[in-house]
Structure formats: C-alpha cells, structure tokens
C-alpha cells in the first residue's frame, strides 16, 4: 500500500466521515425523541416529560454541535480532495447536495436556536413547533444525503457526455433503485441507535442510584427506558426485515458487493450461510469456513437452489477488498440480533413486571448503549468498502476521482484532523459523561404515587396540572 495523495485522501475521507456519521446517527433519533417528550408534556402536563426534555436537549446540543462542525468538513472535502469526482458527478449530485442545504440545514439551524434558547420567549406551542422542525430537518437532511449516496451505489437517470455524468431524469436520479430501502434502513438505524443509547444510559442511572434514590430522580430514567425499549421491541424486527429487503437490492444491482459480503467466490446455487470464514484474496478462497448448507441461497433468493453471484464472475481488479466487507457485514448483523434478543427480553420482563428491577437485564441494557453506533458504522463500512474499486458504481473508479493535490498537503491535513478530532471528541465525551452523571434535575415535591400509579388520562380531558409543579419560565 503506497501512501500517495490518493491513499491519504481515502484514509482522510474514511476517518472524517466515520467520525461524522456517529453524530447524525444519534441526533436524527434524538430530535424525534425530544419531539415525543415535548408532545407528551403538552398533552399530559406531567412535569416528568419537561424535565426529561431539559435533560436530553443538552445531550442533543452537544451531539448536534459535533455533527455540524464535522459535517462542514465533509461538504468541502468533495472539492478539496475529490475534485475529479466533483467534476464527474457535479451536474447530477451538485443540485442534490444543494437541496439538502436549502431544505434541511437552514431549517435545523434556525429552529435549533429557538429550541435551545427560546422556550420562554415563544411559549409552549411555538417551542414545540421548533422542536418538530429540527426533527423534520434531520429527516430531510438524511433524505438528500442518502439519495446522493445511493446514486453513487446505483446510478440512474443519467447519460455520459464528454466523460461526465449529466442528468436525464431527475426523478430517476433522486429515487434511484437503492434509495428507498437505504433511506428506510438508515433512518431506522438512527432511531434504534438513539433508542439503545437512551435505554442504556437510563439503565445506567437506575443501576447507579439503586432503589432507594428519591422518586424524582428515578422516575425520569424509568420512563425514558420504558419508552426506548418499547420502540426497540417494535422496530428491531422491522429493521431486520428492511435490511433483508435492502439485501435483495444489493443482489440485483451490485452483485460483486454481494459476493464479497457473502464471501462467495464461485457463482453457485445452494450457497451455504457462512457464519464464519477468513476470506483469502490471494488464493481466491475461504479458510476455516463454517456454514449452514443451502440457507445462504434461501436468505438471499428465498429459494434453496437460488443462484448467487461469485467474486470470480469479475476480474480481480473489479473486486472490493473482501475481508473487511465480509466481517463488517457480520458484525452489523450480529449486533442486530443482539438488539432483537434484548427487545424480546424486555417484553418478557415487562409482562412479569420486572423491567426496572432485574439487575442482569439492566446491566445488559447498559452494555448495549453503543450498539447502534456500532451497527451503523459497520453497516456503512459494508456499503462503502463493498462499492470499491468504484466511487460511482461501474462508472468512476476511486483512483480516478482524487484532486491534483500534493501528498504532503494531504498528510498534513490528515494528521491535523486526527489530532483535532481526538481532542474534540475527548472533551465532548467528557462533558457528556458529566451531564449523564448528574442526570436530570430531580423534580421537587413530586407526588410519587400519583406519578407512578395513576393511569394515563385520555387526550381530551383538560389537564389537571400538578399545582405549582409546572416550572415557570426563568427570567
């Protein structure tokens, strides 16, 4: 591996985008989580929701800030490090990226200020609207950026003129073949990332404070954990289904990537489901393979004797690096099934009435806090490394996409990014940990019995606010 400007730019892009994606993956879900909390506050007047909102909004603000600053880096790197990619795709992807800026970024940014600082200036309802707009902005942003990414995976609606892609059909470009399922898969992934992070952090608070802590301290953690685990129990199975459908699209449009994911060298029917193997690219075979016969074909084609494409269908210089694709996919799927298991466990404990008391379960939930981040990251490794050696699948090789910049300049920038991100991330984690340790402010004078036992009132009944409990706006 030669460390020329191309390789350095690839490392830099991989590093900066892996760092970046952690934050959107979290904040897409957190924004909706905040909207749900505030909706419940407006609906029930139960101070626990406002209290939770005020706690999670701080976590959100730090994560969002880190996402914004690392995102600006991404938007300029297309030009600084990948100018020939910009030249090739500019006619098609330029407008798509611009739509992201004008429809999503401004929306998020303008209403973020009101959401963070404006509650007592605009009142409850407008503030709730601002929260919803921020949540909507994150979803719109994901829409456009995944459209652009999907187009690079499954290009459509274009023609090639003078060695550049030019648009022919905008609808086909934006809604390219892999986009709908990739978008669903990513948004669900982001929501689940948040759900497991919220559940895990809440479980940690419950474990830490024990059963004797004041109710005002624990009620919020219980409510958060319960809501997040409901979400996980319902949506993990749906995510697995969406992932499976998305896989069928990969089989259809990116057969070589699929072959790498499966570690499948020969085109074959009755392909086994490989649970473990070490792909050997030099020998074009797998070592230590462990698989269940025929199930691989069945999962992919829904027929036991379905034919699955092999890596040897294409010459070696058209194949992605097999090992990282093979393993990152298995890590992602493994995490997914661990999530499924936790979701089912939570349902069982709920039924038994032990959701908040089973310490083994609380510990497991706490340990799953970072699981969503892992799944998202390894999912992206699968998608992006699996696309190699192309940056635009079948059209533009990564090697032909780089800028005419010097290796010295790129190595300097790469080193700077590594140091700066480590510094920023270190402090970000430190302040997040401080916030978590502090937990939500206790709700003073909370009527514990009323809060934990009273059934939810129907929507139409006027709020009977806990007198004097509703926090008044600060000056």
């Amino acid at each position, binding site marked *: 591996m030669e460390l020329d400007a191309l390789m350095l730019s690839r490392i830099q892009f991989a590093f900066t985008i892996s760092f970046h994606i952690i934050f959107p993956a979290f904040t897409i879900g957190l924004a909706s989580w905040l909207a749900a909390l505030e909706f419940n506050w407006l609906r029930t007047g139960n101070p626990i929701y406002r209290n939770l909102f005020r706690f999670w909004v701080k976590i959100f603000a730090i994560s969002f800030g880190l996402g914004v600053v690392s995102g600006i880096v991404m938007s300029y790197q297309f030009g600084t490090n990948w100018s020939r990619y910009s030249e090739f795709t500019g*006619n098609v992807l330029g407008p798509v990226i*611009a739509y992201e*800026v004008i*429809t999503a970024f401004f929306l998020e940014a303008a209403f973020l*200020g009101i959401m*963070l600082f404006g509650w007592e200036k605009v009142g409850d309802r407008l503030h709730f609207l601002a929260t919803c707009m921020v949540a909507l902005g994150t979803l719109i942003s994901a829409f456009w950026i995944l459209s652009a990414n999907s187009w690079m995976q499954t290009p459509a609606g274009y023609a090639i003129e003078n060695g550049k892609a030019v648009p022919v059909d905008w609808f086909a470009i934006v809604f390219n073949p892999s986009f709908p399922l990739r978008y669903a898969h990513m948004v669900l992934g982001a929501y689940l990332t948040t759900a497991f992070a919220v559940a895990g952090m809440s479980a940690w608070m419950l474990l830490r404070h024990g059963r004797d802590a004041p109710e005002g301290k624990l009620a919020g953690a219980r409510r958060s954990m319960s809501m997040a685990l409901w979400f996980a129990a319902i949506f993990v199975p749906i995510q697995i289904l969406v992932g499976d459908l998305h896989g069928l699209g990969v089989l259809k449009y990116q057969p070589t990537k699929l072959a790498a994911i499966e570690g499948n060298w020969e085109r074959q029917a009755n392909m086994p489901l490989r649970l473990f193997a070490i792909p050997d690219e030099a020998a074009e075979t797998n070592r230590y393979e462990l698989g269940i016969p025929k199930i691989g074909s069945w999962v992919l084609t829904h027929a036991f004797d379905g034919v699955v494409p092999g890596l040897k269908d294409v010459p070696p210089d058209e194949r992605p690096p097999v090992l990282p694709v093979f393993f990152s996919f298995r890590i992602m799927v493994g995490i997914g099934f661990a999530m499924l298991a936790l979701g089912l466990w939570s349902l069982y404990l709920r039924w038994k009435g032990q959701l908040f008391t089973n310490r083994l379960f609380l510990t497991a939930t706490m340990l799953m806090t970072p699981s969503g981040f892992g799944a998202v990251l390894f999912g992206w490794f699968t998608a992006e490394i699996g696309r190699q050696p192309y940056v635009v699948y079948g059209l533009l090789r990564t090697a032909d996409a780089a800028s005419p910049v010097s290796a010295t300049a790129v190595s300097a920038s790469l080193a700077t990014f590594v140091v700066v991100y480590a510094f920023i991330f270190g402090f970000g984690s430190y*302040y997040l940990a401080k916030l978590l340790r502090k937990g939500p402010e206790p709700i003073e004078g909370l009527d514990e019995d009323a809060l934990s036992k009273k059934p939810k009132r129907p929507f139409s009944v006027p709020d009977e606010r806990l007198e004097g409990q509703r926090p008044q706006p600060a000056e």
Partner: protein
Amino acid sequence: MFGFGTEYEGLAFWLPVIWAGLIAVAVAMYVIVDGFDLGVGILFRSAREENWRDRMMFSVAPIWDGNETWLILGGGGLFAVFHLAYAILMPALYVPIITMLIALIFRGVAFEFRFKSDRSKFLWDNAFHFGSLVATFAQGVVLGAFVQGFAHDGRQFTGGTLDFLTPFSVLTGLGLVCGYGLLGATWCVMKTTGELEIWARRMAVRFLVATVVAMVLVSLWVPFLGRQIEARWFSWPNVALLAPIPLVTALVAYRLYRDLETGRPMRPFFLAIALFLLGYLGLGVSLFPYIVPPSLTIWQAANTVSSQLFALVGFAVVLPVTFAYTAYAYYVFRGKVAEEIRGGGYGYH
C-alpha cells in the same frame, strides 16, 4: 451580448448569470451574518470581564449555527451549478480551506463546551477567539487568492499547493480580520448595554480605521493585479460609472464614525454592513464574469441547463421560506442581552 464575447444564448446565457447573482447573494449573506459572529470571536479575548464574554457569546449563541449555514450554501451552490469552478478552486485553496475548517471546528464546539466547563473554560475562551481569528484570516486569504487568479487548464488546477500565499492575499486576510472585527464590534454596540457597550464602541472605532486603511490598500493594489481589472476601472465611460462606489464608501465610513462618536445604538451595525457590501460590489465589478480568474467565465464553468434549472426551482420555492423563518429566529432574539447572565440564561445550559 453585453460585450462579454460569449457565444451563449437564451437559457444557457441567463441561467449562469442568475446563478452567479444568487451565489453572490449567498456569499454576501454569509460574510455579513457569520462576519459579525466571527467578529464577536475576534473581540472576545480583549473583553476584560468574564461577564462581558458571557454576554457577548449569548448575543450570538442562538443564531450562529444558521449564520454558518450560508457558508455551506456558498460551497454547495458552487458545486450545484458551477462544479467546474468548485473542482478547480477547492484543490487550489486546499491549505486555507482546511485551515478554516479546523478553526471553525474549534470555534463551533466552543459554544457548547464553554458553558459546560469550569476548570477547562479558558480552553474554550481561546478556542472561540483563535478559531474565529484564524477562520477569518483564512477566508480573507481565500478572497485574495481568488482575486489574484489561479493556474488552470480549464478543467483542473495546475499550480502549486502554496500558490495562494502572496503579500496580497495576506493583506486581504488581515483586512478581513479588521472588517469582521468592525461588524462584531458594532453588533455588540447594538446588543449590549453599560460599560460593555461603551467598550464595544471604542473597539468599533479602532476597527473602522483599520478597515478603511485595508480597503484603500486593497483598492490601490487590485487594479494592478491583472490587466482586465485595470481596463475595467480606468477606461471611459467606466471611470464615471464606477466612481460613485469609492465616493459612497467614503461617505458611509464617515457617517459610521460619527454615529459611533455620538452614541447611536443600532445604525453603526447597518452602516458597517453597507461598508462591506460596497467593498464587495467593487470586487464583483472587478471580476465579473470570471468565476475562476483570470480566464474561466461563469458560462464555461456552468453545469448543464437541466442541473441549473432543477436547482433553481428549489431555490425559488424554498429560499423565500428560508429567509422568512431565519428572520423570525432573529426576531425572537431581538433586543439587548441582559446585563446579568444567570445560570438559567436563556433557559438552557
């Protein structure tokens, strides 16, 4: 048509002109709005009291994120409709752009981290100040390098990594620091009270003087950078048509100085913006229609008509809405920042 010697007609002529206008507006918006909050950062470390710094930061905390979004729109817009310019300019400006990005990272996180820290607060004071300073200087260098022009073969940058760095681009870098400092100081005059306001007024006068000096130096230098620019300014009837630009600039600068002296609260900020726009206009006049000086025009760099139209539809529909809610966000946080920033602040942190 219009003496630009282009063979482009109809949509192929007009779309790039419209888009050049829109991107110019986006960049101007950026320079004004992020200019003043970067300027607040430039002033930040000179502020004597912790309470002053708190108030200065609070005056921009709810809006800075939206302000910075115009920077993404400038880059994104260039990619969307003049991708060839984007592909040439970005590698040519590799060092200053990456420097700016790194500086903006430090500055951006400072907003969140500063209020959550106690022992490490000094770190984020410095991150905010030096992040703003370095980002501004880098932007000024980019501006200077842009005016100078770039070695390119029409598709790719062909020069060296450090070509951007010249005495002229260093001058524009320093000039922009003074200019943003002026915007930031007049913003503080408008948004704060008491001793802080008086101090901001004094700083504004200093930055005004420095800005005017920088503008004069740049104006004297620019015509001699390339023959096209010299011809544009000093040929008849251009001399007569363009003469009002420097004259009005001088008047605005004088008015601004008087307003700062006499204690007007809000007008200095808007006069500072006017000063910026006049300087910007002068540069626009010098460079149009080149998007990669000295030889690539907006028409040569433009994307296909379909791409420009597709993006334009979105801009026409969405941009007015964007302006509306951005204005609303500013309206929500109108008025002066309270003298005391209590723990609850704006109900957050």
